């Protein structure tokens, strides 16, 4: 359906040669824009209808007071299904600390949340197939779990800004959410609007980069330099490249699609996706309000190493 739309718009309407670079790039852009926005609207709406209102406030109540391994598993799982705006990461961090949740568990949550989200997962399913989706999710959950454990070993408490320990949090007295069908419909429509409003630029940018990659980067070059396991610099290179690029998992998917299509190795692609989604510079700067630089450097280091290992692992498996 989307392929036909791409054919129609680019080759028939605009009359661009399918064999040209421009034709290939534009075709990819039109097709993916239609496909991704179509899927986004449907998926966010359906999720909105069915998702019990899982707010971070509720997550905190679930995680609080559990033994560490259970708390960490819950935090990772809930992190994967609860979306939150990146400007919430500071109050979220303080809220977790104040509830007496161990710092390592909090880090696990902070890693899992941007890396895995339901929107990205469903789009991954639609574009890259279930095997890759499963691999990405499994790797993401593992990195979040193990990353938090490693952080804890370094006693990160000493890097928390002192004022954080002094904040006392009030009990939340929120009205019960409206769970009637009409109420959930309203909530779902609101979700679609808000998430699209927040994401559309990044998604278009991602599709644009993917389209340029698809249309203009020669395949032999890609296969030679980024394809196999011979060039061991490809994986760390992909992770480094991802750090200054600020986007979320949803925006990276079209880029990953184009990379895989040109023959970039699977592990290299996954490492790049993870790096972009969970290791961004702006996110670090926001977290600086609560964590001192050495703590942040460790956080970034742990994540970078984890992504590189994931990348090598999948490249070897493939």
């Amino acid at each position: 359906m989307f392929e036909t739309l791409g054919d129609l718009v680019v080759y028939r309407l605009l009359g661009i040669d399918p064999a040209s670079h421009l034709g290939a790039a534009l075709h990819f852009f039109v097709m993916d824009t239609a496909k991704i926005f179509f899927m986004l609207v449907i998926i966010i709406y359906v999720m909105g209808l069915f998702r019990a209102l899982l707010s971070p406030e509720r997550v905190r109540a679930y995680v609080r007071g559990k033994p560490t391994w259970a708390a960490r598993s819950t935090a990772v799982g809930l992190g994967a299904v609860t979306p939150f705006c990146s400007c919430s990461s500071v109050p979220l961090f303080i809220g977790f600390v104040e509830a007496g949740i161990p710092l390592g568990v909090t880090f696990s949550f902070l890693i899992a949340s941007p890396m895995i989200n339901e929107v990205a997962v469903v789009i991954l399913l639609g574009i890259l197939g279930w095997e890759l989706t499963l691999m990405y999710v499994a790797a993401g959950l593992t990195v979040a779990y193990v990353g938090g454990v490693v952080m804890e070993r370094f006693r990160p408490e000493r890097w928390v800004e002192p004022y954080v320990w002094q904040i006392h949090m009030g009990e939340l007295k929120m009205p019960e959410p409206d769970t009637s069908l009409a109420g959930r419909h309203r909530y779902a429509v609101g979700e679609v609007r808000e998430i699209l409003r927040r994401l559309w630029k990044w998604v278009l940018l991602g599709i644009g980069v993917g389209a340029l990659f698809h249309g203009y980067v020669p395949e032999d070059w890609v296969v030679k330099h980024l394809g196999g396991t011979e060039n061991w610099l490809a994986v760390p290179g992909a992770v480094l490249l991802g750090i200054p690029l600020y986007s979320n998992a949803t925006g990276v998917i079209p880029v990953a699609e184009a990379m895989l299509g040109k023959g970039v190795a699977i592990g290299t692609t996954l490492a790049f996706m993870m790096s972009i989604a969970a290791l961004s510079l702006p996110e670090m700067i926001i977290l600086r309000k609560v964590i001192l630089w050495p703590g942040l450097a460790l956080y970034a280091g742990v994540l970078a190493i984890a992504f590189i290992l994931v990348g090598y692992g999948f490249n070897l498996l493939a």
Partner: protein
Amino acid sequence: MKEVKILGSGCANCKATYKVVEEAAKAQGAQIDLEKVEDLGRIMGYGVMSTPGVVIDGQVVHAGGVPDRKTVEGWFSR
């Protein structure tokens, strides 16, 4: 007069929330005393971790995202 507070660290979503509340109140002809709360300690004092949040007369009515216009108008029609 209702005392309305917008909780948020100053991100784009928080500003959008402020605007929605301001406009909805005006449209409903409601007199409100609108205030932005950016101090983290005070935000957390309401128990809110996901910003933006909205507090009316000391009661948290919304947290985590920009509320939709209909919901906001509902707060001022009573």
